[in-house]
């Protein structure tokens, strides 16, 4: 099967371009520039060079022995946590910032939740001499304070957004408003496979490197492709990057793990596929958390990167046709998995990635012993350490 959007960016009933008229021309220009520049030899070799010598690609595919023996199947971790800046976000951002430079844009804006996309954007802008401004919800500037400081250190200006739920959704609203206002000079570097066409396609293409490397590495190591791929899903970029190069391999199961927050029944979660309805937000038609009047209700997750009420349209499409499965893990399960992986493998995962580990702990034991599983470890957990320390201390005092 080929999962490709139509010429207007529709994946089945999802995707498209739902934006104020002011942005239409800019999106046309981006689409044209992307098609013309991003596949040229000059661009490709410059980007490949940066991914290799600057971002540290290829990232290792690590055979997690304790995890494997504990869960009863062969489990590999794709180590995106070892990419420069500590998450997969850099893959997309180096591509987009390079594109911005080729397009002659001098100012780059971004939205960020966990701050990983903001840090990656600030990093790439520092590298390429671009002016960088990042929008971040006030709630996230508090729970991801380290990343706020990193962005500032890298020379970016961070705008704290205090409207709405003060998280990624509201940061995205503000970034869109900035873009509507400054569209002539500004490149909007979207951080996941979401937003208006062509972003979901463009971000996916830049993240496909994860799956392409995985394919090569697992063939080298095991002589066959995996039975199961797993990744956490916020907007869905690390998951899409891993899944997409395997979509034509019918035998490969793909499992996206959304944030169940305090439980899908609690109404406090980020599971747009698990519990959402079709709707329009942030320039795309997708699944989203919306009430019967069409108002968006705030998402919730322990992890800022999954705390988003919608999801990339290609995931909504893959869920609809049944090519990929989507499940969820709660805040508590993610916290447990955060500690579990640290102890079992000596790898401290991002709270986002811990959702994928949490589901693996429940799911992998049900697989045959000879099953081959690849989990995308989308980022490292340093940014979450202060929050996790607080949460663990609170747990201990509850027990006493």
């Amino acid at each position: 099967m080929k999962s490709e959007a139509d010429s207007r960016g529709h994946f089945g009933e999802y995707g498209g371009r739902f934006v104020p008229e002011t942005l239409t021309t800019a999106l046309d220009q981006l689409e044209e520039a992307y098609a013309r520049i991003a596949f040229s030899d000059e661009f490709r070799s410059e980007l490949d060079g940066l991914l290799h010598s600057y971002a540290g690609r290829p990232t290792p595919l690590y055979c997690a022995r304790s995890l494997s023996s504990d869960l009863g199947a062969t489990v590999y971790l794709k180590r995106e946590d070892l990419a420069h800046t500590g998450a997969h976000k850099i893959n997309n951002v180096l591509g987009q910032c390079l594109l911005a430079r080729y397009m002659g844009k001098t100012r780059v804006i971004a939205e960020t939740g966990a701050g990983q996309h903001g840090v990656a954007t600030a990093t790439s802008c520092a590298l390429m001499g671009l002016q960088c401004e990042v929008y971040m919800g006030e709630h996230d500037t508090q729970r991801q304070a380290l990343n706020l400081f990193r962005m500032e250190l890298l020379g970016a200006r961070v705008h704290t957004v205090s409207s709405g739920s003060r998280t990624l959704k509201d940061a995205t609203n503000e970034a869109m408003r900035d873009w509507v206002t400054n569209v002539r000079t500004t490149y909007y570097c979207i951080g996941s496979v979401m937003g208006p066409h062509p972003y979901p396609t463009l971000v996916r293409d830049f993240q496909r490197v994860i799956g392409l490397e995985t394919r090569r590495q697992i063939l080298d190591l095991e002589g066959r492709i995996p039975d199961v791929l797993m990744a956490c899903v916020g907007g869905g970029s690390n998951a899409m990057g891993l899944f997409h190069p395997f979509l034509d391999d019918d035998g490969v199961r793909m499992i996206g793990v959304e944030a169940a927050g305090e439980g899908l029944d609690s109404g406090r979660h980020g599971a747009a596929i698990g519990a959402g309805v079709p709707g329009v937000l942030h320039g795309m038609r997708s699944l989203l958390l919306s009430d019967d009047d069409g108002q968006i209700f705030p998402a919730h997750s322990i992890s800022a990167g999954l705390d988003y009420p919608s999801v990339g349209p290609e995931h909504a499409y893959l869920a609809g046709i049944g090519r990929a499965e989507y499940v969820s893990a709660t805040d508590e399960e993610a916290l447990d998995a955060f500690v579990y992986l640290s102890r079992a493998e000596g790898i401290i995962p991002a709270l986002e990635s811990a959702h994928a580990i949490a589901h693996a702990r429940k799911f992998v034991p049900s697989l045959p012993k000879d099953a081959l599983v690849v989990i995308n470890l989308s980022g490292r957990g340093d940014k979450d350490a202060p929050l996790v320390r607080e949460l663990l201390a609170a747990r201990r005092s509850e027990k006493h």
Partner: protein
Amino acid sequence: MGRLGERLAALRERGEGALIPFVTAGDPDLETTEALIPALVDAGADAVEIGVPFSDPLGDGPTIQRASERALRSGTSLRRVLELVKNLRPRVDVPLVLMGYANCLYTMGEENFAIAAQSAGVDGIIVVDLPPEEGESLFAAVRGRDIDPVLLAAPTTTSERLARLARETRGFLYCVALTGVTGARGTLDLGIEETVKRVRASSDVPVCVGFGVSKPEHAARIAEFADGVVVGSALIDRIAAAPSPTAAVDAAAEFVASLKAPLRASGGAAAIR
């Protein structure tokens, strides 16, 4: 031709500029809006844009964001806005146009919305985040119920696309006066005159200009080259600053009268023809 087209044609005939105030329904509550709209019409409004509040209004600046928050807090929903229009309809003979975001309309369902809007007496809709490429089926549904889908054009719109928008819009073409979100601005961006001229080059459709307009001088200047003027944030700022609902209605009516006055004498767009 719908009520909107007829009204703008009659004004053009008389050489008079149209004044179209925008208010967010339910800000601070629907009772106030129900008193406000007839007062705006008495003060000289030629049509009224009624904002349907949305939780994530990404085309709006702080004034309308706040207005939407107040409206949602008071329990305003699309269904209740349609009830408001139904209640107003016998008392108000100017065109009433709903302005909002796609998600609210889609959530009600295209056909359900079109039926409900027609029975309430809605004359037109403006959907901020729905360009014609994506709006095809919704716009067809409302056109089938004699409701005009009004399209927006921006300073960044190419001439080729402007011609298409002018051809496909109904009622009027809404030209956004600036590159940016809604919100009162101290000065008028005169680049808009060039945008309107580009529309005129290919089309006779009435053109109204909005976003950023905040003073009678702005309205007068716009009426020199366009059919009408939309004023939103500057009006809502006055409503929000008033000490009571009655004072808000009075302040809004007074402001609308001051904006309309220079349009009566302007000669309007007909003068440039």
